Structures are given as C-alpha cells and as structure tokens.
C-alpha cells in the first residue's frame, strides 16, 4: 500500500546553527497508529510541525497522500489534522463555534450532523454552548481534538496527547484514538511515555538528537530487542552461585533470595528446561518462579545508551 505520509531528507537547521533534524526519512502507512518516541528535545515536535506546515524546513520534502506539502498545499493540508502539545484556542469562543470555524477554515462545507456526532464522541455535546474559558483543562484538550477532527482528516497528528493529563482522561484519549483507527484514520502521535507507545502503536519510531534511531513494528521491536527473564524465589538464600551453575548467565539478587536468568526471547532454545533440570539435580529448592519480558522502556533506554 502506498504510504499516506512520506518524509524525505527533511533537515531543519536554525539560524543559531542548532540542527534540530538531520535528514529525516520516514513513511507512514495508511490506517496505522505510529508513535514517534523520544526524549524531550529530540525533535519530535519539530518533525510533525514541519509535516503540518507550521515550521519551515531547511531542505527535504513532505508529501501527504501523494500531494507535495509545498506545491499542492491545499490538497495536502486538507487531509491533515493537528492537535498541538499546548492548548491553543480562542477562549472566548463557544465550543460549537470554534469547531465549526475549524471545519470551514479547512475548506469543508458546514455539516451540523457531523459536528454533533464528533462532539458527542468526545463527550463535549453538553458543553457545546459553553465558552472555552469555562471548561476544565481536560475538556479544553478534547476541544483541541474536536477542532483537529472537524474537517474529517485522513491523518491526525497528536503532539504529546496525554502530557499532563490524568489517568482517566489518558485512557479516554486512547479509546478515542482506537476508534479513529477503526474508522481508517491514520494516527501519528509523539510521546515520551513509553507506556503510551506500547499501549497504542502499531509501529514505533525512536528519535533522538534529531535522528531517527530505529523504526519497526512494535511487536517486532520488542521481540528483537527485548529480553526475557526467569526469576526463581529460592527457599534458602545463597551467598554465591554453586560451581555447578558456572557458565550460565545467572545473577543472585535481593541478598541471595532470588536467582535471575536472562535470555533472548527470540532464540530457538531458551535453555529454561536445561536450567531447571540442573537446578533440580543440584538440590536447589525454590518456592516460586516468575517470567517477565522487558518493557519497551527498557528497550528504549538500551537503544539510546547504545546510540550515545
């Protein structure tokens, strides 16, 4: 399938000499949820701002659904919705007016039925006549999303959608994003919450210091880079590893109460069976066992350490 967003060689250098982005190449497939993951200052916001046209690029090109973002900006931009990180909305307007304004600004004919369903979806219908200044922070964020979706975009950019948002609202946001995906909308979100990328994304791009370090399917990334571990809760604490276990990648933790075995999740043979047999034959008793795979967070930290 042809990509809905194509970024080629996008570079951003400021007059001060600071290079925010070093020649970024990225393709986003239609209908996927893509998470751009990176620490603060990595260039996430700069990249999506360039794609959406609010920041100029030094060189490179962007196209949306085959339309060059510079040459055919009308066709390209009408397909894109952007929810910026900061809440930026005319606070003296009513919810209804600001959302219908956005729809017309993006060149769509007025459609009260659509706006109504949008506001109902985002639990804003009861507030439609309220001025934005009267709304809570969470409600304001929903208004920002309603504005970005007002013109029925094919691609939605969410810049740090849940930064500074409470748990309930975060879960609501995720639910909204899932429903958009079901409707065929491509969602690109930036986040520095690994949890968010892990919960939401089909694919994850890791960006650091203006470079894309890695782009992969979330599952593949976790499999390829993830480690699994087996932990045995020992019945009797050990002060050191018995010689019979030498050569195994084992560690004693928590004052010798736990024995941890780290192994490659994608390896053909994990070695668990042999290890357990060996432990048994050495007469080591354990009261519990637990396996765990590493989180995206651990992968991410590992990647950045590797890149640095």
């Amino acid at each position, binding site marked *: 399938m042809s990509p809905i967003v194509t970024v080629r060689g996008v570079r951003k250098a400021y007059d001060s000499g600071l290079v925010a982005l070093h020649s970024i190449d990225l393709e986003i497939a239609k209908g996927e949820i893509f998470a751009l993951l990176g620490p603060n200052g990595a260039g996430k916001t700069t990249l999506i701002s360039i794609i959406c046209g609010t920041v100029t690029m030094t060189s490179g090109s962007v196209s949306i659904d085959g339309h060059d973002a510079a040459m055919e900006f009308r066709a390209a931009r009408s397909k894109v919705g952007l929810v910026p990180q900061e809440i930026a909305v005319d606070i003296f307007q009513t919810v209804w007016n600001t959302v219908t*304004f956005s729809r017309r600004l993006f060149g769509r004919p007025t459609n009260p039925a659509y706006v109504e369903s949008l506001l109902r979806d985002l639990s804003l219908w009861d507030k439609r006549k309220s001025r934005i200044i009267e709304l809570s922070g969470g409600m304001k964020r929903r208004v920002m999303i309603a504005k970005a979706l007002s013109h029925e975009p094919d691609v939605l950019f969410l810049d740090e959608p849940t930064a500074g948002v409470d748990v309930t609202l975060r879960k609501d946001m995720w639910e909204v994003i899932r429903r958009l995906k079901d409707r065929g909308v491509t969602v690109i979100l930036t986040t520095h919450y690994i949890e968010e990328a892990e919960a939401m994304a089909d694919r994850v791009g890791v960006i650091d210091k203006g470079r894309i370090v890695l782009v992969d399917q979330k599952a593949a990334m976790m499999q390829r880079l993830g480690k699994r571990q087996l932990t045995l809760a020992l019945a009797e604490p050990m002060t050191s590893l018995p010689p019979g276990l030498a050569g195994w990648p084992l560690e004693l933790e928590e004052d010798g109460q736990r024995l941890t075995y780290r192994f490659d999740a994608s390896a053909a043979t994990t070695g668990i069976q042999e290890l357990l047999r060996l432990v048994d034959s050495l007469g080591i008793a354990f009261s519990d066992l637990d396996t765990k795979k590493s989180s995206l967070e651990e992968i991410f930290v590992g990647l950045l350490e590797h890149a640095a």
Partner: protein
Amino acid sequence: MSAAPIRFSGMLAIYQAEMARTVRTLWQSVATPVVTTALYFVVFGGAIGSRMQQVGGVEYGSFIVPGLIMLSLLGQSVSNASIAIYFPKFTGTIFEILSAPVSYGEAVVGYVGAAASKSVMIGLIILATATLCVPVRIMHPAWMVAFLLLTSIAFSLFGFIIGIWAKNFEQLAIIPSLVITPLTFLGGAFYSIDMLPPVWRTVSLFNPVVYLVSGFRWSFYGAGDVSVEVSLAATLFFILACLGVLKWIFRTGYRLKA
C-alpha cells in the same frame, strides 16, 4: 477519501470570525471612537473653533470633520489589524491558520478585510455623530467612500505588519502612539498646511497622512492641500508598499514560522 477543500472557505471563515469578534466587543469598538470624537468637537469645534475664522470658506467646526474621521480611521485600522494577528501569535492559535489549506493572500484578505470593514463602519458612525454637531456637506460622496475604503485598507495592512512584527504588547502599542498619533496630528486634521510656515509646510509633504486628510477633505468641501490625484496616488502607493513588505514576510516566514 476526502474531497478538495472549498476555495475561499477558509478566507471567509477568518473574515466572519473576526467580524463576530467585533460584534462581541461592539460596545468598546464603537463607544471609544464616538466619545473621543465628540470630545474633539467640544474642544476644537465648540471652544476653540468659535474664536477661529473660516478655513477656505468652511466653518472651522465643519473643516475638522474629515480630519477627525481620518484620525479615528487610522488609529482603529492599525489597532484592529495589529491585534487581530498579534493575538493568535500570542495565544498560539496561529498554528491552526498556518496548518490550514489557506494561502497567505487569503489569510490577509480575511484579517485585513475584517479590520478595514470595522474601520469603515466606525468612520461612518463618526460621520453621523459629526452631522449632529456641525453642518457637514459632502460634495463627492463616491470619492468620500473611496478614500474611506482605501485608507482603511492601507492602514489595516500597516497594522497587520505591525502585529506580525511585534514581539510583545509594548511593541504593539509603540507604533500607534509614537508614529500614527504624531503623523495624524501633524497631518492637517485640525488645520490646513497652508497655515504653517514654509519650512514646516515642506516637511509636512513627507507625511503620508497629509495626502489622506487632504483627499478626504476634498471629497467633502471640494478643496484640499494637495490635488486629489496626488492624494489618490499617495494612498495607492502606501497600499502597494505594505503589500510588498507582506510578500517578503510570507516568503521568509518572518516572525510567523520558526
């Protein structure tokens, strides 16, 4: 999946949103210039004007009407248009305009058109107020409307540039108070530049406001400090100069885009 955007839909949306903002603040928008102008009539028309002779065959109170309208028109155009674009920059809502399928030209027509429309309305309200205070006749109504429109557009464009240029509220206020007010006071709103010593007369000819007031006054009483053609040419030149600056701003993204 989605159809091409409707042409000019965004431009109209900006224009109507700006006009709605005017209506929302109608009381301040209209009351201030009307009260200010009424005060000028009391002071210059009533108190001082009664001791002055006629200027060019026109009673002093009537003579200052076109100048007073210009005074408000310039101030209102500059402040309306500068705030209209400065405020979205300040609050961050400009991102939506920049990311919309709207060309710079359309955005300018939306913002500047709304600011100029508001100025024209205020100019007409002041004219109506003036006719209640002093005898006013308009010899060339079509030209009067033309100068009203062109001046509103010219100074709304100028205000739009200031709104983009300004980095804070102080800068936003400094141009109207340090440039526009002196130029309008020295622009012949309250006197004919013939009354000035020759040196200052010559200096005055470098003040663009002289041409606006003169042309506007000509449309009322059939006489001005400079010929109406020169007034018209000067106004059009000012508009073109502003458009030139805006073209540069949009090409470079100056203070609009990082």
